[in-house]
């Protein structure tokens, strides 16, 4: 990088270049970190395919995301939970959150229905009736 040579007759000039460098670096840092923060809801999973999927609305509904991995492991809001913990957690949230709390189930397409149906039962018992399945669009 070629720095401008200071002309003694003009006086002490202010060199902007390092500041711009740092500002760009900060911009990139925040872009990357915000991207990673959103990734929490976007864990890569082979979701089931469906033709009637709707676009995910970006409104202010309280939303709870539950990831179900290939081996049946449950991730609720980024934490691993066991099935009996999930039932308690859902009951607790069903009581404390507004009635239209939305449970979004992001389950792998390979996971057996036997691992998903207890979740539906737990949600129904907790009064969480607004359940969405995340899917990929069918080509």
């Amino acid at each position, binding site marked *: 990088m070629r720095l401008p040579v200071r002309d003694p007759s003009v006086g002490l000039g202010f060199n902007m270049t390092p500041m711009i460098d740092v500002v760009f670096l900060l911009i990139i840092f925040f872009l990357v970190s915000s*991207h990673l923060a959103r990734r929490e809801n976007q864990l890569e999973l082979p979701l089931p395919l469906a033709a009637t*999927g*709707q*676009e995910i609305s970006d409104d202010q509904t309280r939303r709870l995301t539950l990831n179900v991995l290939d081996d049946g492991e449950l991730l609720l809001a980024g934490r691993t939970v066991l099935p009996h913990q999930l039932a308690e957690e859902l009951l607790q949230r069903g009581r404390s959150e507004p009635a239209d709390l939305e449970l979004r189930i992001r389950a792998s397409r390979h996971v057996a229905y036997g691992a998903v149906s207890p979740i539906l*039962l737990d949600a129904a018992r907790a009064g969480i009736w607004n359940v969405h*399945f995340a899917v*990929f669009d069918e080509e």
Partner: protein
Amino acid sequence: MTPMIDVVFLLLIFFVWTASFQIVERQLPSHLDPPSAPAGTTSEVDLDQQDFDAVVVKIDWQADAPQWRLNGAQVSSLEMVRDRLTIIAGIRQEISVIIDPTAAVPLEHVIRAYDTGRSIGFSDIRFATTD
């Protein structure tokens, strides 16, 4: 200008890299409780009983392939299930469809059945669970 152009190219590459590889994710809404029932309840249904208030789509998993049954009658493929359901929808659209997979069925096929029911236009599709 050179450092700025460097950085701008870097930003450009970053955005191209992050934007292109994400598959759009969609959602299938499902209401667990019928609106008439009080919240937090599940209703017990005897799925083996034949009646005209509900269509039961049973999915079994044998030899790594789904086996479809519609109200007890064996149906060879999902396309056949779709055809039969379309005929039923032509008679009674408001009938409940109950999807009853065994525990071994991969979710893929369950969602396909649900999706089929939605695309035909049934409004009341439920999932069966066993306690």
